[in-house]
C-alpha cells in the first residue's frame, strides 16, 4: 500500500491530500477512487498529483481519475484547470501523444453476422491500417499539404473525401481546434509526422471489433440514444490512437523550450522537470498552445482517415456500402489536451485552461458545443479497457462540475510494461485469446504481452467509481471479438 497518512476521505469515491501535504501546494489534490482502487494506486499518483497542485494558477483542485497511475509530470488520469490570466500551460499536463483519443463507430451488423467473417475482417483491417513502430500512412502528403492538415484537422478530411459531415459533428470541437498555426511547429515535427497520417502506432493503440450484448446494457434509454440497440448483439468498432511522431516532436520541442525559459525568464521554479511550463499568456505559452492545437488536429485527421479505411474494409468484406452497414460515428473524444473552457464559479461562467492527461472531457446534458442529438443525454465518453476484458461507453453527468466535467480514459495500468513482458508471452496470449473468442493480430508479440489484461486495473471498478463520484454514467459494456494492435 502506498496511501499517504495525510490522505483524507471526503466521500465514498473522493480522497484528498490537503495543501499541507507538500510545500508549495496551492490547492488540495483530489483522487477519485473506490477504497479498493485507492489502496492499489501506485506511489507515483500521490507524488505526481500533489506536484501538479504546486503549478502556478491552478484552480480548485489537482485531480486524478480512478484509472490513474505513474505518468511523467502529471499522473496519467490527471486534470488541472488553470486561471488563464495568472496560470501556466505545461506540456507535461497534456502528454507527448497530444490528442491521443478514442473513437467509437456503430454498425447495424450483429455478432452472428460478423463472426463467420471475423478472421477475414480482422486480417483485412490489419493489412489496410498501418500499425507498429515506424509505420507510414496510406495518405501520401507533401510537407505543405501536411501543414494544411494540421491547421484544419477533420475539415481537411471532409474536403478530401475521407469524412462525412456527420463524422465532423460527432467529433469533439468538430474535429478541429481553432487557432492552430503551423508556423509554431518545427520543421523536425513536420518531417517526423508528414508520412504518418492514417497510422495506428503501437503500445496501447489498437482498433477493436466489439459487441454490445443485451445483458451489458446498463442504461437502456442512453444506449438507444447513442445507437447501441439497433440489433441484439450489435457490433461496434472502437479505436485508440493519437498524433503520432508529429505530436511527440511538438511536445519534445516545447518541453525543451520551456525548460530553458521557465526559471530564467519567468522565475518559475518547479518540483519536477517534466512539469516544465510557461505562463499561458507568454509568447512561449501561446506558441505551444498553437502548436499543440496543430497536433490535436493531426490526431483528429488521423482517426478520421483510419475511419475511412475501416469503412472501405467493411464494405469489401460485407459487399455493402458503409451506409447500408450503418457505419456511423457515436463520438470521438480526446484524452490528452489542454482547452480553454467556460465553467461556472458561484453562478457565473469563468474561463479556465483545463489540462487533461489521460482523462476525458465528460460534458453534462446541455454542455456547450454538444451536437444536438446529445443535448439531452450528455456527451458520450469512450473508455478503452484492456484487449482481454472489455471497454465502456459512458455519458457525462450534471454532477461532474467540481472536476471540470472530466472522467477517466481507460482502465489504467497496474503492472509495468517490463513486468508484463516477463510475466506473459505474446504468442501464447494470442492463442489463449482466440480460444476465448477474441481474434487478435499484431506486429509485435512483445508489445502484445505488455498489453495483457492482468497488466491493467479492473475496468468495471474504474467506471463504477466514476459513476459513484457523479462524473460519468455507465451506458454499456462493450466486449471485444477482434483486435488489431500496434
Amino acid at each position: 500500500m502506498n496511501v499517504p497518512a495525510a490522505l483524507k476521505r471526503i466521500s465514498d469515491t473522493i480522497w484528498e491530500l490537503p495543501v499541507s501535504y507538500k510545500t508549495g501546494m496551492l490547492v488540495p489534490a483530489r483522487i477519485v477512487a473506490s477504497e479498493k482502487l485507492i489502496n492499489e494506486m501506485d506511489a507515483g499518483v500521490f507524488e505526481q498529483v500533489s506536484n501538479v497542485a504546486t503549478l502556478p494558477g491552478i484552480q480548485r483542485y489537482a485531480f486524478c481519475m480512478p484509472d490513474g497511475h505513474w505518468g511523467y509530470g502529471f499522473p496519467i488520469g490527471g486534470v488541472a484547470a488553470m486561471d488563464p490570466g495568472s496560470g501556466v500551460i505545461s506540456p507535461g499536463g497534456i502528454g507527448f501523444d497530444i490528442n491521443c483519443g478514442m473513437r467509437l463507430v456503430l454498425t447495424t451488423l450483429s455478432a452472428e453476422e460478423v463472426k463467420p467473417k471475423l478472421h477475414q475482417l480482422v486480417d483485412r483491417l490489419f493489412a489496410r491500417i498501418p500499425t507498429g513502430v515506424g509505420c507510414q500512412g496510406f495518405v501520401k502528403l507533401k510537407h505543405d499539404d501536411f501543414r494544411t492538415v494540421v491547421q484544419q484537422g477533420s475539415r481537411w478530411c471532409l474536403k478530401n473525401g475521407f469524412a462525412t459531415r456527420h463524422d465532423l459533428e460527432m467529433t469533439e470541437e468538430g474535429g478541429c481546434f481553432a487557432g492552430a498555426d503551423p508556423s509554431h511547429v518545427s520543421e523536425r515535427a513536420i518531417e517526423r509526422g508528414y508520412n504518418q497520417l492514417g497510422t495506428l502506432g503501437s503500445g496501447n493503440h489498437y482498433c477493436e471489433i466489439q459487441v454490445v450484448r443485451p445483458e451489458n446494457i446498463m442504461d437502456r434509454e442512453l444506449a438507444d440514444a447513442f445507437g447501441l440497440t439497433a440489433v441484439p448483439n450489435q457490433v461496434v468498432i472502437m479505436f485508440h490512437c493519437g498524433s503520432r511522431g508529429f505530436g511527440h516532436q511538438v511536445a519534445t520541442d516545447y518541453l525543451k523550450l520551456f525548460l530553458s525559459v521557465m526559471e530564467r525568464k519567468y522565475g518559475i521554479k518547479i518540483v519536477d522537470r517534466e512539469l516544465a511550463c510557461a505562463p499561458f499568456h507568454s509568447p512561449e505559452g501561446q506558441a505551444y498552445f498553437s502548436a499543440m492545437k496543430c497536433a490535436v488536429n493531426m490526431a483528429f485527421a488521423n482517426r478520421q482517415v483510419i475511419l475511412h479505411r475501416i469503412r472501405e474494409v467493411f464494405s469489401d468484406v460485407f459487399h455493402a456500402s458503409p451506409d447500408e452497414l450503418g457505419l456511423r460515428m457515436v463520438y470521438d473524444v480526446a484524452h490528452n489536451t489542454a482547452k480553454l473552457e467556460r465553467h461556472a464559479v458561484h453562478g457565473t461562467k469563468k474561463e479556465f485552461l483545463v489540462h487533461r492527461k489521460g482523462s476525458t472531457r465528460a460534458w453534462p446534458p446541455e454542455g456547450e458545443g454538444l451536437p444536438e442529438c446529445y443535448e439531452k443525454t450528455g456527451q458520450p465518453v469512450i473508455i478503452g479497457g484492456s484487449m482481454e476484458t472489455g471497454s465502456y461507453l459512458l455519458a457525462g453527468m450534471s454532477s461532474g462540475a467540481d472536476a471540470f466535467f472530466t472522467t477517466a480514459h481507460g482502465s489504467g495500468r497496474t503492472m509495468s510494461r517490463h513486468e508484463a513482458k516477463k510475466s506473459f508471452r505474446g504468442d501464447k496470449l494470442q492463442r489463449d485469446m482466440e480460444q476465448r473468442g477474441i481474434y487478435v493480430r499484431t506486429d509485435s508479440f512483445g508489445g502484445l504481452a505488455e498489453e495483457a489484461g492482468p497488466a491493467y486495473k479492473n475496468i468495471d471498478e474504474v467506471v463504477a467509481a466514476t459513476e459513484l463520484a457523479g462524473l460519468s454514467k455507465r451506458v454499456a459494456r462493450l466486449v471485444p471479438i477482434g483486435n488489431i494492435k500496434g
Partner: protein
Amino acid sequence: MPFEYRGDIAHADVAFDAWAPTLEELFCDAARATMQVMVENLSEVRPAQTLEVKLEEENEEMLLFDFLNELIFYKDARRLLLLPAEVNVTPSDGGFVLRARLSGEEIDVVRHQMNTDVKAVTMLRYKLEQVADGWRATVVLDV
C-alpha cells in the same frame, strides 16, 4: 549488461539505468537501451547506411537527451533503425559538442523483431551523472 530496464518508476512507460566507464560508452549504451525497446533483436540491424550527427548543448545531460531524441526522430522521419558506431563528446565554448557516426538500416518487419514504439524521452527522474567509476544515467521513455 551495461543497461537494465526497471519496472519501479514507470508503468505505462519504459525506464532504464545505464552505466559505463566513459561518457561516450554511456551514450552508446543508452542508445542501445532505447533502440532495444523498439527492436528485440538489435543484432539483426545491419549497418547498411551511415549518418553523421553533430549536436551541441550546455551540459552532458541535455546532450544525451538530444542524442536519444535524434534516434527517435530518424525512426519516424526516415524509418531508420540506427545504432551508434562512434561517439565523441568534447567541451566547446560554454557547453559540449557531440559528434557521432550512426549506422543502421530501414525497418524490415520480416527480419526485425519489432517491440513497442518509443514516442519520446521524458524528464521524469531523468539524470546523467558522473560517479566514482564512470558515468550513470536514468532515463524514462514514453512508449
